[in-house]
């Protein structure tokens, strides 16, 4: 076997330029594949983490019809009993209760439909990172009376500045139209400009003063120890309490869930494209090498080299070539990933900072590759190499020395 490997290695370097081109193709292909997979993973993970940590959380509780209808009287029954249950569940890291309703925002410029979100500042800050999105002014912990936080884009549409006053109109729990004026304390900018245009934040105590005559909550957002526990957790909640619907983030945001799955499919698609290109590269090189060496292989069979050994020799050439290229490609990819995991990949050159923000993405991506994905790509490379080498190797063992001599 050692001699076969030696002969394979030397055969590879009979045509240094040709083998080098293929090696570079394998190295670049593998590197690009791993980086592409890692970047896609990173993009998906960042998007998922951002959405979960800043707003959606791992699980939410609502009145069964609230998400469809959005009426203020569809609040969560038995809120305090649920809160006590959450306090005692070890899976829960933190939770926050929100008072929500849909309404109208009026400014001297125009009127916009918005969702008004009444937040408990202390528990909200423990549960989500939304307060980190503040870009101007103060958050809801300001001393300002009837403070409201607007999305930067919504404020621009209304030509609003900090300190200006707006009017929010909505139905209270008795279906009576109610209006109240609020003072703009600050602007936020989330990863989604669409979200920024449609959501205004106020303190829940300010909200409850005009919405209802008691504490009512329409949403409880819950962060768990980890995402994997969400499904079992909501199942427990739904069986424990009637009159509510608990849902995981995947159910609450099917588009996000689909995006993550789509990312997975894209990853496989990219990998397969690279592998197919790799397979044809190997096949082409090995066939060229075989056609050039027909006389030599014919001689080997004539003097007594078994067809099995000829088969192994050809297979080994492909394997040695691919292993060399793939190993180099993986090392380069690993080093690149190691670098980019810290520094991030700046995607600004593709769409600009604004462009990414428009669609709710960060311009910096931090690639992620799991051990399983490395193993999967290595397995696919090995399989593809073996398959691509098979045809030239089978062709080699069918060589008839007499035909070659003719």
């Amino acid at each position, binding site marked *: 076997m050692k*001699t076969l490997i030696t*002969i394979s290695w*030397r*055969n590879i*370097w*009979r045509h240094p330029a040709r083998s080098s081109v293929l090696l570079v193709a394998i190295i670049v292909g593998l590197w690009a594949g791993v980086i592409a997979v890692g970047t896609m993973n990173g993009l998906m993970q960042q998007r998922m983490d951002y959405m979960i940590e800043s707003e959606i959380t791992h699980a939410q509780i609502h009145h069964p019809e609230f998400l469809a209808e959005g009426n203020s009287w569809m609040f969560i029954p038995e809120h305090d009993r649920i809160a006590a249950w959450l306090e005692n569940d070890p899976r829960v890291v933190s939770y926050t209760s929100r008072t929500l309703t849909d309404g109208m925002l009026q400014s001297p410029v125009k009127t916009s439909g918005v969702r008004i979100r009444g937040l408990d500042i202390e528990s909200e800050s423990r549960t989500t990172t939304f307060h980190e999105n503040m870009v101007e002014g103060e958050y809801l912990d300001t001393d300002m009376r009837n403070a409201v936080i607007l999305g930067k884009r919504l404020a621009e549409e209304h030509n609003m500045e900090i300190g200006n006053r707006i009017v929010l109109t909505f139905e209270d729990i008795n279906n009576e139209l109610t209006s109240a004026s609020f003072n703009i304390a600050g602007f936020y900018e989330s990863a989604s400009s669409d979200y920024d245009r449609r959501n205004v934040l106020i303190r829940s105590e300010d909200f409850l003063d005009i919405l209802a005559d008691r504490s009512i909550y329409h949403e409880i957002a819950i962060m768990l120890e980890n995402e994997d526990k969400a499904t079992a957790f909501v199942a427990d909640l739904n069986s424990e309490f009637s009159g509510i619907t608990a849902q995981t983030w995947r159910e609450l945001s099917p588009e996000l869930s689909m995006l993550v799955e789509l990312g997975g499919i894209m990853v496989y698609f990219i990998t397969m494209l690279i592998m197919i290109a790799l397979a044809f590269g190997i096949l082409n090189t090995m066939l060229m090498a075989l056609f050039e060496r027909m*006389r*030599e292989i014919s*001689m*080997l*069979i*004539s*003097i*007594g*080299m*078994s*067809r099995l*050994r000829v088969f192994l020799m050809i297979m080994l050439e492909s394997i040695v070539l691919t292993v060399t290229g793939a190993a180099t490609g993986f090392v380069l990819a690993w080093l690149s990933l190691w670098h980019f995991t810290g520094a991030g990949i700046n995607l600004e050159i593709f769409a600009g900072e604004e462009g990414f923000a428009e669609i709710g993405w960060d311009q910096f991506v931090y690639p992620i590759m799991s051990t399983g994905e490395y193993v999967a790509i290595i397995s696919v490379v090995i399989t593809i190499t073996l398959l691509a080498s098979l045809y030239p190797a089978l062709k080699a063992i069918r060589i008839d*020395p*007499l035909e070659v001599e003719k």
Partner: protein
Amino acid sequence: MPIVKTKNLSKVYNPETVPVHALRDVNISIEKGEFTSIVGPSGSGKTTLLNMIGGLDKPTSGTVEVNGVQITGMKDSKLIDFRLHNIGFVFQHYNLIPVFTARENVSFIMLLQGRDKKEMQQRADELLDQVGLGDRKDARPAQMSGGQQQRVAVARALASEPKFILADEPTANLDGASAMNLLDIMQRMNREQHVTFVFSTHDKRVIDRARRVITMVDGAVHSDEYQKAEEYDESKA
């Protein structure tokens, strides 16, 4: 017991369409230690006969025996193994492995036989010394002349310790001096070590050196004669 024996050996190409009789009832017997030339014009069947004897081609009828073993009808894989242990080949185009050195080319066939590494090295060196290439052991084929490459091919053929060596027009691509040098070496090995050589050739220099000349015409043995071969010249070896 003859080293090679053919019995009513015939080969017909395209029997269904336009039959070409490459061999017609060839009966020859070659004893150990012979230095035999198979001669004849192009298309006379000498290469076909050599291929039959070497187990590279299958006859339409008749049989070939090598050292008492009938190789006709032998399975391909068994035949390859049989060639490895019993027949040495020297080709017109040398057919050395270009990525191997002279020593590695000679050792390779012993490696296929599964011999001990030390023994392989030793025998390869001895054989290269015998063919006058003791100082070119680490040279690759591209660094050697045609005559030197053919001498490596002879050393390779001898390395497996075959029962006989088949050489298909071994001097066809060599200049006069190289051809004579090669023939000197082979003749010396034949005399001193009783190595059996069977050549196909139409090179007069080879024919003159052979002790037995089998002439083929139209696929049949036209004559089979022993002659006084030109003497081996020690000074040329």
